[in-house]
C-alpha cells in the first residue's frame, strides 16, 4: 500500500485536484446544453456525459478530501477554491461555442482521458487505480460518441464541415497542455502513481488523426502551433472566473450553510 509523506501528500492532492478539476469543469460546461441540445437524443447524451464527469470529479475530490482531513469535503474543494487554485486544462473551461466546438473539445479530451486512465490502472495508489477502472467504461462511451459526431459533422454538409474546420482552428492550440507535465504530474510519475504524460501524446495523436481523416478534416500539422498552457498551474483564461462565480454562487453567498 502506498503511503505518502508530507510533501508527497501535498503533491498527490494537487494531482487529484487536477484530475477532478478536469472532470468538473467540463461537466459544468456540458451541462449548459441540458434542455438546449440540437435534438432530444443528443441532449440526453451530452447530459449523460456531464453526469459521468461530475461522478468522476466527486471520486477524485472525495479521495483528496480524505487525505486533507479536517473540515475538507468534496464540496469545499469544488466550491471554495478560487481560479488560481483550480488546475484543469484551459481547453475545458472555454465557452461551449456551437455544437461542433463542444463535440470536438469532448473528442480531444475523451481520447486523452482514455489514454491517461488506462495508464492509471497500474497506479501504485489503489484508490486512483480503482477510480480509473470504473471511469474507463464511461470514457470509452464518450470517445465513441464524440468520434462518431466528429465524423458526422466533418463529413456531413458544407456548412457542418466549415464549422468543424473553424472549431479545429480555435481549439487546437489548447490540446498541447495535456502533455506538458506540471510539477505534481512529474512527482506522480516518479512515485509510480501516474504516467509520464508526454508519453501519452503519440497514442492520442494517432487516434485523433484517424478520426479526423474519416471526418475528411485536415489534421493540423504537428509542432506548428504555439500551445496555450497555464491551467494546470492555476493560470487560467478570463472565462474561468465567470465559470466559478456562477458555480460557486450559493456557497459563497451563504457561507457555512448546509444544502
Amino acid at each position: 500500500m502506498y503511503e505518502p509523506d508530507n510533501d508527497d501528500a501535498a503533491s498527490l492532492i494537487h494531482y487529484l485536484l487536477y484530475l477532478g478539476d478536469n472532470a468538473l469543469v467540463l461537466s459544468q460546461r456540458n451541462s449548459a446544453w441540458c434542455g438546449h441540445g440540437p435534438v432530444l437524443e443528443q441532449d440526453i447524451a451530452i447530459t449523460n456525459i456531464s453526469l459521468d464527469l461530475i461522478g468522476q470529479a466527486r471520486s477524485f475530490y472525495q479521495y483528496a478530501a480524505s487525505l486533507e482531513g479536517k473540515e475538507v469535503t468534496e464540496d469545499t474543494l469544488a466550491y471554495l477554491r478560487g481560479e488560481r487554485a483550480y488546475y484543469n486544462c484551459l481547453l475545458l473551461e472555454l465557452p461551449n461555442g456551437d455544437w461542433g466546438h463542444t463535440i470536438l473539445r469532448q473528442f480531444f479530451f475523451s481520447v486523452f482521458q482514455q489514454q491517461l486512465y488506462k495508464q492509471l490502472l497500474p497506479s501504485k495508489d489503489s484508490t486512483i487505480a480503482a477510480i480509473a477502472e470504473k471511469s474507463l467504461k464511461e470514457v470509452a462511451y464518450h470517445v465513441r460518441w464524440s468520434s462518431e459526431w466528429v465524423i458526422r459533422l466533418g463529413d456531413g454538409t458544407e456548412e457542418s464541415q466549415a464549422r468543424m474546420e473553424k472549431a479545429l482552428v480555435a481549439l487546437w492550440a489548447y490540446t498541447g497542455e495535456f502533455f506538458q507535465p506540471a510539477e505534481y504530474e512529474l512527482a506522480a510519475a516518479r512515485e509510480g502513481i501516474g504516467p509520464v504524460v508526454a508519453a501519452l501524446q503519440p497514442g492520442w495523436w494517432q487516434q485523433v488523426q484517424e478520426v479526423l481523416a474519416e471526418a475528411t478534416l485536415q489534421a493540423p500539422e504537428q509542432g506548428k502551433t504555439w500551445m496555450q498552457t497555464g491551467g494546470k498551474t492555476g493560470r487560467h483564461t478570463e472565462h474561468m472566473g465567470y465559470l466559478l462565480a456562477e458555480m460557486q454562487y450559493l456557497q459563497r453567498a451563504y457561507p457555512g450553510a448546509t444544502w
Partner: protein
Amino acid sequence: MSVQELEQLFQAKVDQEIKIEPKDWMPDAYRKTLVRQISQHAHSEIVGMLPEGNWISRAPTLKRKAILLAKVQDEAGHGLYLYSAVETLGTTRNQTIEDLHSGKAKYSSIFNYPTLTWADIGAVGWLVDGAAILNQVMLCRTSYGPYARAMVRICKEESFHQRQGFDILLQLSQGTPEQKAMCQDAINRWWWPSLMMFGPKDGESTHSDQSMTWKIKRKSNDELRQQFVDMIVEQAKILHMTLPDPELKWNEARGHYDFGEIDWVEFWNVVKGNGPCNKERLQARRDAWEEGAWVREAAAAHAAKRKDRQAQQVA
C-alpha cells in the same frame, strides 16, 4: 360495418377496460384528443426542463448538481417516450415539435413561472411534480395502450423527482434563517400555480366529459386538485412551513381540506401567453431547434453518404 357500429364496438372495448392499440379502429375525435393531450404532455416535459435547468450551473453541492442533472435528463427521456406515443397515432415528432414552436400546441402553464432561488428547485419538485404525479398515476390506466404504458415508466421516475424536491426543502427548512425564508418564499410563489395545474373547474372544462367517457381521463380536475391539497397540507407540516391560503381548513363533514379560490384571471392570462416567462420559454425552444438545424442536416447528409457508399460496395 357502419361508423356507428364501429363506434359502439370501440366504446364497448373501452367500457370493458380493453386497451385501444395503434392499429385498432378509433373515432377521429378520440385520436385528435389523444394527439392534443399527449403532445401537450410531451411539450410540458421538454419545456419543463428549462426552469429547472436554470439552476444546474448553480446547484449548491456536487451531489445536488448531479441529482438535478439526472432529473432534468429524465424529463427529456419522458418527452421522448411521449413523442413516440404521439407517433403511434400518425403524427411525426417533427410535426408535433413544429406545433409547439408555432404556438399552436400548448404545454403546462406552470413552466411559465420563473425559478428565482434554489428553493424553487425544491418547490418545483415537491409541488409541481407532486401535482403532475397525481395526474400521471391516473393516466397509467388511460384507455390508449401506448400512452398508458409510457405513463407507467414515467411515474416510477416522477416519484423519485418529488422526493428529491421535498428533500431540498427539508434541508432548507432545517437550515439558517435565510434558508428557511427562502423555503417559505418559494412555497408561497409556487402554491397557487400548482393548484392551477389541474385546469379549470369541472363545470368549465371543455374536453372533460368526453374524455371521461373514453376513459382517457378517469378523475375530474376538481377531484385531483382536492387529492393534491389533502396530500400537500400534511407534507407541509413536516417542513414546518405554511401554505399561503387563509381559507385552508380541515372540513370534518367532507373529510377533506377546504381551500380558497384560485385567481382565474391570472390562470387564463398565463394560458393565453401573458405569464412571466411564456415568451422566453418558447423562444428558448425555438432557438435550440433553429441553432441545431445544421447539426440535424449534417447527420442526415452523413447517413445518406454512408448508405450510398455501402450500396456502391455491394454493387
